């Protein structure tokens, strides 16, 4: 106990460090919330920190009236739901196949997919392939190409390999086929890791924008929330020091204020959900991190 004084100082320093860490993490987000609820013209003057100075919900009204953003939101919700379900089903089935001890091509199938983690054709050949397959200017470019991911498959495989073989063997004695074993025996035991993978896929789907820009630039009906947000971001960046441009605008909504509101709308679903899903991604990462 002789170290108690040094201990005290250490814990005070630690407390300060953690406090600063939290402030640096949260401040930019809270600041965006404040700006999103502030009169746009007023916000240009600066000096807004954690609370709005001239409160308004006008920015949010504008965002909800913007047809492209609403369309983007619909597409994003659709791709997140469909993409997560199909990707989970595909990865789970593949992981099930390569984790069967007696499967004839167990090693070959694993290798076939692990290679895809390290080698790929690159942006241009993939772009041309999608064009040939009719996946450009199509909703399905969000779903089909990324359906199987070797990383997620490996996370699932590792988990499935931890399930005792005796369960499978006794089911086989009862005459169950592989589909029954997959659907009725293995899958119910894998629900935690299914949740993990679903979370990874869903976050990826929700946040991706590059595919919308690259493959569906010409098809406004397939725009996504993040891509629309990106367009708003470039408007803001291309007119920095925007006092003049703001003066010219007819309403009190500025590109910065509308972008802030759109940012909050976009992040809200994930921010509300992730604290409750912590144990799923923590286990998923620890499984995935140590394996291949």
């Amino acid at each position, binding site marked *: 106990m002789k170290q108690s004084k040094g201990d005290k100082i250490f814990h005070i320093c630690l407390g300060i460090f953690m406090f600063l860490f939290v402030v640096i993490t949260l401040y930019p987000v809270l600041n965006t919330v404040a700006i999103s609820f502030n009169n746009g013209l007023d916000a240009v003057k600066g000096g807004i920190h954690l609370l709005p100075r001239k409160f308004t919900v006008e920015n949010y009204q504008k965002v909800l009236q913007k047809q492209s953003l609403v369309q983007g939101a619909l597409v994003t919700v659709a791709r997140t739901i469909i993409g997560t379900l199909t990707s989970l089903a595909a990865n789970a089935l593949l992981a099930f196949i390569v984790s069967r001890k007696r499967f004839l091509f167990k090693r070959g199938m694993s290798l076939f997919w692990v290679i895809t983690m390290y080698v790929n054709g*690159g942006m241009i050949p993939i772009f041309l392939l999608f064009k040939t397959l009719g996946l450009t200017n199509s909703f399905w470019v969000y779903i089909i190409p990324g359906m199987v991911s070797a990383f997620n498959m490996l996370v699932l495989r590792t988990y499935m390999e931890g399930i005792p073989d005796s369960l499978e063997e006794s089911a086989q004695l009862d005459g169950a086929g*592989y589909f029954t074993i997959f659907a009725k025996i293995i899958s119910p035991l894998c629900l935690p890791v299914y949740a993990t993978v679903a979370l990874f896929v869903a976050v990826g789907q929700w946040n991706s*924008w590059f595919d919308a820009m690259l493959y569906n630039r010409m098809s406004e009906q397939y725009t996504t929330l993040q891509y629309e*947000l990106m367009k708003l*971001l470039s408007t803001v960046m291309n007119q920095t020091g925007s006092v003049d441009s703001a003066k010219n605008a007819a309403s009190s909504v500025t590109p910065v204020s509308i972008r802030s509101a759109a940012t909050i709308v976009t992040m809200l679903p994930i921010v509300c959900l992730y604290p409750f899903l912590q144990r799923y991604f923590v286990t998923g990462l620890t499984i995935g991190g140590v394996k291949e």
Partner: protein
Amino acid sequence: MAKEKGKDKKITWAEVKRQKFLLLWSAVFVVYGAIFYYIPLGGWIMAFQNYKPAKGFLGSDFVGMDKFKFLFADNTFLQVIRNTFAMGILNLVTTFVMAILFAILLNEMKSMGGKKVVQTISYLPHFLSWIIVTGILHDALSGTGIVNELLMKFGLIKQNINFFAKPGYFWPIVAFANVWKETGWNAIIYLAAITAIDPSLYEAAAIDGAGRWAKIRHITLPGIRPTIMILLLINIGNVLNAGFEVQYLLGNGLVQSVSQTIDIYILKWGISQFDYSIGTAAGIFKSAVSIALVIIANYVAKKTGEDKLF
């Protein structure tokens, strides 16, 4: 994986029939994988051609290594390689150090409640897209943003700094963006590794009179060393992949000599200028370097007796 060696590996008809479900779906997955992962590799042929979409792969003229010669004679491409490596390595080092530091410090926190709260908040940025992260970073660093305001208040500057107009700031900004987004998330694995360290080691060290720093240096750090090494191995192969979204979103004409990366170069030549051959050649270069990095890292790990990837 080599456990089942003793089992008979002879393919009997009965076994094939029994595994019908597995085999059928495997075939589906192989076709799918071939289309989306292996067929694009065939597109590499474009790098050795003067590829014209109208003429196709068969009709376009072969030009040998001309496209690669063009690349390495192009100063922009050399600049782009430098930028990609510099930012990739800078990001790798800073995110690694910060995540390890954060995990160790978080582990030292006494209050369980406080720890939980800090950790939950630390994950938040990981779930935000790069669009959002670069957007709020842009706000924070703008003329009316918090950074300039604080610097002014403390009298460190007399005039606002335009962070996005000076090339010197670009790499640090990108590194900071990565640290801000991923520190809490990357710390998860280290925290799990720290929890797995045998507590009796710390007790024994305490009896020997080891202080906090001695314990961190001689127990915690060696304890998470295998985790650090394996993550380093995985990430070294990804160094060149770390250079796209932030640079694309934050880059502008004033800083493009330091902001452009290989992927942005490919995008410009391939997608915007329709020169598929140059774009593909640059892509092949990137793949080759990435694979070489993984193999070298793996070799070094094997030599030094660390875990290896494969």
